């Protein structure tokens, strides 16, 4: 009889899977992540669809970054399965994730300050003309492609020969997004993209986010800013203590409800507060 709960669980998961709309690009099921004794994620089910912006919300330490890192191949989940583009995947590294079309723009932007704009955008995927196996950079081709990418994003970086260390926060964000676009990412994950930005730059990044979704990509955005989220997201998921406690379409909710879910005042938040 001990197997019964597991069996019920399995059947539930199976029916969940069958009910998931066929177009969900990412299907995460029962994702769990433990760091030693600490459980950072517990039994998280999430679908992410192409052409949509999905926002992940939650208090500090709720597990948003951890979940996103599982998608990005930076953490191997302790439990659960991940299907991307119809394949069951098990990412051992960010490289694996990138090969499946997943690109991540991290909270602390992962750029190299001493490298130029184009060098950062192409890092690890340089356009080269090999001579005897030695990968000689094709700088002209890379510069041309960078202009196209930045144009597509409507991002203004006056000097693309400048080291990234000399750019503003919003410009760096654009570089990071251009990098994702260049890798032909199908899922773009942005962890707190506007946290360090001025108001005008935040506007631009939010516009970029919409633009990415409208181009048919799936976008996941982690944010603390409810106003930003309501402006760009089609769907919202709230985390609390490592669990997914709520999922809402934008049209079916309002900022007050989301805040109540985040702070734990909402009845649905209680599930996460049981030991």
């Amino acid at each position, binding site marked *: 009889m001990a197997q019964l709960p597991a069996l019920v669980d399995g059947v539930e998961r199976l029916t969940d899977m069958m009910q998931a709309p066929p177009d969900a690009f990412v299907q995460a099921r029962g994702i769990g992540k433990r760091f030693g004794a600490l459980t950072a994620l517990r039994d998280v089910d999430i679908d992410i669809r192409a052409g949509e912006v999905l926002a992940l919300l939650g208090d500090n330490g709720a597990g948003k970054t951890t979940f996103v890192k599982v998608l990005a191949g930076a953490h191997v989940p302790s439990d659960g399965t991940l299907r991307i583009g119809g394949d069951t995947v098990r990412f051992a590294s*960010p490289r694996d994730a990138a090969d499946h079309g997943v690109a991540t723009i991290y909270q602390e932007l992962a*750029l190299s*300050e001493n490298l130029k704009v184009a060098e950062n955008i192409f*890092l690890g995927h*340089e356009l080269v003309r090999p001579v005897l196996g030695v990968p000689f950079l094709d700088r002209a081709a890379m510069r041309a492609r960078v202009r196209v990418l930045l144009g597509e994003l409507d991002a203004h970086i006056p000097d693309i020969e400048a080291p990234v260390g000399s750019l503003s926060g919003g410009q760096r964000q654009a570089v990071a997004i251009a990098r994702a676009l260049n890798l032909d990412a199908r899922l773009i994950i942005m962890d707190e993209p506007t946290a360090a930005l001025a108001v005008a730059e935040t506007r631009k990044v939010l516009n970029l986010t919409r633009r990415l979704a409208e181009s048919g990509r799936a976008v996941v955005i982690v944010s603390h800013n409810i106003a930003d989220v309501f402006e760009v997201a089609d769907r919202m998921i709230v985390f609390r203590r490592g669990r997914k406690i709520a999922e809402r379409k934008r049209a079916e909710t309002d900022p007050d409800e989301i805040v109540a879910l985040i702070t734990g005042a909402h009845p649905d938040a209680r599930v996460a507060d049981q030991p």
Partner: protein
Amino acid sequence: MNHALRRNLVPVMLCVLWVALLGTLAATHAWILSPRTLTSVLQFATILSLAAMGMGLVVIAGGAGIDLSVGGTISLSAVLGMMGLGAGLPGYWLPMVCLGCGVMLGLFNGLLVTRLGILPLIVTLGTFYLFSGLALALTGGGAIAGVPDWAVGWGRARWGALPMPFITVVLPAFVLLSGLMALTSWGRWIVAMGDNERAARLAGLPVDRVRLMLYALSGALAGLGGFISLAWLGSARPNIGVNVELEALTAVLLGGVAITGGRGGLVGVVSAALLVVMLRTALLQIGINTVWQTGAIGALLVVALLVNRFSNSRG
């Protein structure tokens, strides 16, 4: 201070030091500035430049990278090369044996650093003692004579005032490695991993493999240095690499490489290596004791470290 000046403080300082040194010599000991001195400086700078280029790339690639074992590698690969001949290997194998020993010793450092995650300072300090100790133990402290004539002929030959080993090994190595750094993706990876290792790993760069290769390269260049010492001196001396690590590190830092990685290039490193040798040669010719020569290099290293720290503090 102006941001641009601050970023370029080390190159500026290097130029100032060159001008100051040559100016002082021209004013006080003009006879030193002769073709003979040029030959002697390049002769002595040959081994140092090779070691400094290897160390420079290891430091640029970050991860607290440093290779203090270069001097030991030079001595040990020279000794092993001659022991190989003693064991019956044909003479023309000598360069390959020295190079091969250098690569193996460098790989050993690289494996300890990348696989076991031990701090490079500790690893290479340990292998410095290990390699130099082995070189001494294997020879009992004496020299091994019997370097083939063709090698000695090449090692002491000149083209005008320029020593042959400098022209045929240092220059090509410099051009090759500078080209690699400036023109290939490998060069960008090395800078990127030194600048922000986390970003480099997230971008999927094979950081550990590149680092391993760089320690092997540093070893290879030191091995070549070992062979050049044989060709120049005509025998394997177990102490030939003494102090090379100190001078190479001085050249690297004085040459504008950030000790924290991600910044600097080989032009600065080689020109700083030449400066170090020029200074030492001038002191020698003026008749200043070798103890003071080492002290002067040490002082230069400390200054380079201070300026390095100042020009790299961000913000």
